């Protein structure tokens, strides 16, 4: 290209190519960094809104008046919740008094892997609601645990848990009907609901056992 150099040496060529590549890398990395910084606030706000929307599905809005996302406590890893890492729980308060707890649990034994759940339990131990937040169950078969995918739009499967409590349902009834319990399931896909029912049951037991700490009014009592 340069008339002065008829055959540029290999080293020169390599250097030239490396510099061009470097320029591209710097240019596009800056572009990425700029895009990241520019979009960060909007993405954070949207993520918080989405979290609140999900919490809103399990926790009725009239049960709390506090800033839920900032009233959180860390839960230690526990077998009962199926979690091997710390998780965040949110304490709902009404007029300053703890009214409900929103927390995560995992059903480790789904048909294909872990099923993540979000639960809301009232201070008196009543289960306010459960939602599946993440799963890998077979599309079109086991995914009816997600109300969006459930063909029964009137009363999605997952709503069977609404309003239940350990005091209302005996231990042996925390099973699908097929196994002698009280929960419906779809024929051909019972492993998935079994896992969810077991996880919800264990989570309720966990809340019953740790009620004092979980619903402690001060955040200093977080475990």
């Amino acid at each position, binding site marked *: 290209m340069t008339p002065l150099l008829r055959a540029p040496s290999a080293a020169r060529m390599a250097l030239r190519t490396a510099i061009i590549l470097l320029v591209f890398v710097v240019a596009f990395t800056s572009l990425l960094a700029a895009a990241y910084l520019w*979009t960060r606030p909007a*993405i954070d706000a949207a993520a918080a809104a989405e979290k609140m929307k999900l919490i809103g599905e399990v926790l009725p809005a009239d049960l709390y008046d506090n800033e839920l996302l900032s009233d959180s406590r860390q839960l230690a890893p526990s077998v009962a919740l199926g979690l091997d890492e710390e998780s965040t729980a949110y304490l709902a308060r009404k007029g300053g008094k703890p009214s409900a707890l929103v927390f995560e649990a995992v059903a480790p034994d789904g048909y294909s892997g872990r099923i993540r759940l979000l639960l809301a339990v009232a201070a008196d131990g009543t289960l306010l609601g459960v939602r599946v937040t993440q799963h890998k169950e077979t599309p079109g078969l086991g995914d009816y645990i997600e109300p969006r995918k459930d063909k029964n739009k009137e009363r999605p499967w997952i709503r069977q848990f609404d309003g239940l409590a350990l005091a209302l349902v005996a231990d042996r009834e925390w099973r699908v009907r097929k196994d002698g319990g009280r929960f419906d399931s779809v024929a051909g896909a019972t492993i998935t609901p079994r896992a969810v029912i077991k996880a919800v049951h264990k989570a309720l037991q966990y809340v019953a056992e740790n009620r004092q700490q979980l619903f402690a009014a001060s955040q200093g009592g977080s475990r």
Partner: protein
Amino acid sequence: MISREEFSQIRDNGIWQQNTSLVQILGLCPLLAVTTNLVNGVMLSLATIIVMAIANVAVAALRNLIPHEIRIPVFILIVAALVTVVDLIFNAQFHELYRVLGIFIPLIVTNCIVLARVEAFANKNPPLQSAFDGLFMGVGMLWTLALLGGLRELIGGGTLFSGIDMVFPALLPLQLLPANYPGLLLAMLPPGAFILLGCLIAWKNWVETRAAARHAGPGSHQAPPVVVSDSV
């Protein structure tokens, strides 16, 4: 500028002649994973169209600055950076749409369709042509994935448009087969996608062979279609 002839050639190539899924057999990985229903197939294709058009334009505009020897790393850099920027902007500005399309956008980074078009087309053509190439390659993918997703969904569960309520909350999926249809799990799983994709390729080749036979008259021989294939 772009001539009428050039435009229709790019269009026909993208939609039929060089269809990414049926002829080039590119991007099988997302294809298998995503086309469990029609809506997902369409959504992945829409995300791909957006990314491919933008990446094609960017590469076409920069094509004279990119040395031949290092074009592949530079293409990967450009495609990956643009996909990430598109992902971030979608997340920030069109959050509702992002919730639907969002999971598909990162899948595209590794999708060799984008890299293939950048290398085969945008590297040698001006931005406008490249934009149309990206668009129509995407449209070709769109109808193929929609068909494949629709078939899998119908055979697998007897429904059509499941998940449409995620895109348009007012619409409901159609239950085409009786509600007690047991479903065919195979169609939902990746092997079912392979089998159905094979059937679609066979159908396309059959249509073309027939058209060629009619065109050339009986007795003439048609050269077998060249299949350009690639991994992933």
